[in-house]
């Protein structure tokens, strides 16, 4: 908490509103995505992030524009916070050429290299080695940048997680391992896929700083990420952060949710990151009359605009199918 905030709330009003707006945008955007899916405008796999918004907003707002991100397939929120427009993401999921990956990637593969957003990766833990490499490049080039790898609890069981943590720690690479622990890998509860359910204990075994954070609290997430990023930027090496969160929706649109108890879901909904953030803003006296209505209106409009944009989007010409399998060589 920065002491200069008498309210005891670490953000100034405008900043706080911006955070809230982003969480609301993610929520609304995904609700609209689910509807578009039912309407058949989005196909393939669609993984909703609803309930986990505080992780994306807290973590990614704590990074600098020049830092890099490698995410997984549940990444709408990450892309939005990183500044990929709702238009570009919705168009991508509609399979349109105006999408952030030209419609080739869909929901699981949002890319915006101009923002150093190196994609949603749909092979669980498959993005971690890429993050190692991006950070290694920065280290070799002596650039004060960090790379954040975002993944789920399920990824922790994969060999690529293990190899990546060892490599990053061994080489003191500027990597932030951000584990969004939502307690399930698809239908498998943490205790049924991890022998060590305290993931910070497991990570600490590699000899890097490991900390658990309330993933329903954007401020707590931001604080932890900022500290870890600062350490990494100064050559202090990688950190592991467990963001304890929960997904309110099914794993994907196909998931009948046979594996968890509705009451458990309801309990977690009591910790809704948006409601929590709002009440803390209220306590701090940072919410003025009409703020919420205004934000909701803005967000609603932004999402509606994204849907319209995506609808109006064009299809990449079929002749371009084989384009970009290889990079065109510059003429010598």
């Amino acid at each position, binding site marked *: 908490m920065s002491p200069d905030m008498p309210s005891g709330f670490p953000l100034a009003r405008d900043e706080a509103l911006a955070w809230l707006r982003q969480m609301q945008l993610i929520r609304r955007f995904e609700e609209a995505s689910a509807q578009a899916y039912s309407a058949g405008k989005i196909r393939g796999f669609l993984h909703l992030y609803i309930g986990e918004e505080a992780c994306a907003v807290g973590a990614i707002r704590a990074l600098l524009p020049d830092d890099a991100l490698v995410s997984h397939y549940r990444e709408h929120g990450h892309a939005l916070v990183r500044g990929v427009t709702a238009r570009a993401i919705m168009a991508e999921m509609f399979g349109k050429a105006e999408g952030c990956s030209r419609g080739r990637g869909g929901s699981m593969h949002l890319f915006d290299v101009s923002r150093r957003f190196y994609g949603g990766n749909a092979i669980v833990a498959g993005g971690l080695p890429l993050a190692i490499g991006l950070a290694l490049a920065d280290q070799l080039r002596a650039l004060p940048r960090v790379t954040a790898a975002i993944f789920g609890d399920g990824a922790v069981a994969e060999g690529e997680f293990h190899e990546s943590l060892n490599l990053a720690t061994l080489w003191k690479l500027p990597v932030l391992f951000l584990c969004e622990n939502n307690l399930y890998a698809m*239908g498998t509860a943490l205790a049924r896929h991890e022998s060590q359910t305290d993931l910070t204990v497991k990570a600490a075994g590699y000899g890097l700083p490991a900390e658990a954070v309330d993933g329903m609290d954007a401020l707590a997430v931001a604080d932890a990420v900022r500290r870890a990023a600062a350490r990494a930027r100064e050559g202090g090496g990688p950190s592991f952060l467990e963001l304890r969160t929960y997904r309110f929706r099914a794993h994907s649109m196909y998931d009948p949710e046979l594996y968890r108890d509705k009451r458990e879901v309801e309990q977690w909904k009591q910790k809704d990151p948006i409601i929590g953030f709002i009440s803390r803003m209220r306590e701090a006296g940072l919410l003025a009359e009409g703020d919420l209505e205004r934000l909701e209106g803005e967000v609603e409009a932004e999402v509606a605009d994204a849907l319209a944009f995506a609808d109006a989007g064009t299809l990449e010409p079929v002749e371009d199918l084989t384009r970009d399998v290889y990079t065109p060589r510059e003429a010598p």
Partner: protein
Amino acid sequence: MSAGEKRPGTVRMTYREAVRAAVREALQRDPRVFLMGEDVGAYGGCYAVSKGCLAEFGPERVRDTPLSESAFVGAGIGAAMGGMRPIVEIMTVNFGLLALDQIVNNAATLRHMSGGQLSIPVVIRLATGAGRQVAAQHSHSFEGWFAHIPGIRILTPATLEDARGMLWSALQEPDPVLIFENALLYAMEGDLSEDAGAVELEHAAIRRPGRDVSLLTYGGSLFKTLAAAEALAREGIDAEVVDLRTLRPLDDATILGSVARTRRAVIVDEGWRTGSLSAELSARIMEHVFYELDAPVQRVCTAEVPIPYAKHLEDAALPQPPAIIAAVKRTLGEAHG
């Protein structure tokens, strides 16, 4: 296949239900059998194949695993060495790459390398194929590619009968068997004889006899190929459709016999063209029935691109009936050209 009245003595079911029936039968008949893989239990299987099995057989025999493809596939191999008959489910072949070391360097190798001291009766089920807009990392069709590996058997059930019958037969094999289930087929509905059971694994099947050209295919492409054959029939072209069924070992007698009869062949393969199984088939035809050929063998394969998400691009990347029809006409045309 999904049209029309239910035939007497049959049950109407989906491919998914046929596989489930096979899994349940295996678990009921042989105490050494167990099912292991990601989300096969509480979730019911990512394609709902094993839905209900956890409740029926319990967590010992229907085992959810962590995301650890290499370890649980290797564990299936080890359990087979230890006297069990594991059915290991790899959600999709896309993740199977993470277990390829275990499949190639252990499952396929240990028997020969040890001088024949052990057998590894493990069955590995994998979903495969594109066509569901799940994009490049989830749309691989590697069943033909894996057929390169000696020491394993590769099955590609395309019909309800094979979906129902191949698993039990695979479990009787003393060596590792990989069963590739094309994910697009799970929802396919049809009538299956009430007493459907194990099927033989030795032979390719002629799904449609014909005189003018042999269409060689397998798995997800079978029904596209049959559709193309019907369209050709309406134009007076009588195509024979051969379903390979087993990709390793290949049933040369049936495949080459068909081509020798029709003197023309078109191969339809959902793998990327270069180095796909279609190449091996063409090479074998070259080697064995060259002098019977009236025209060069044609191949209809997947475009050599990571499979895109957008439907129109994905459709364009995959083998489709029009391309099959065009290839058939080329082989016929060239014969007179």
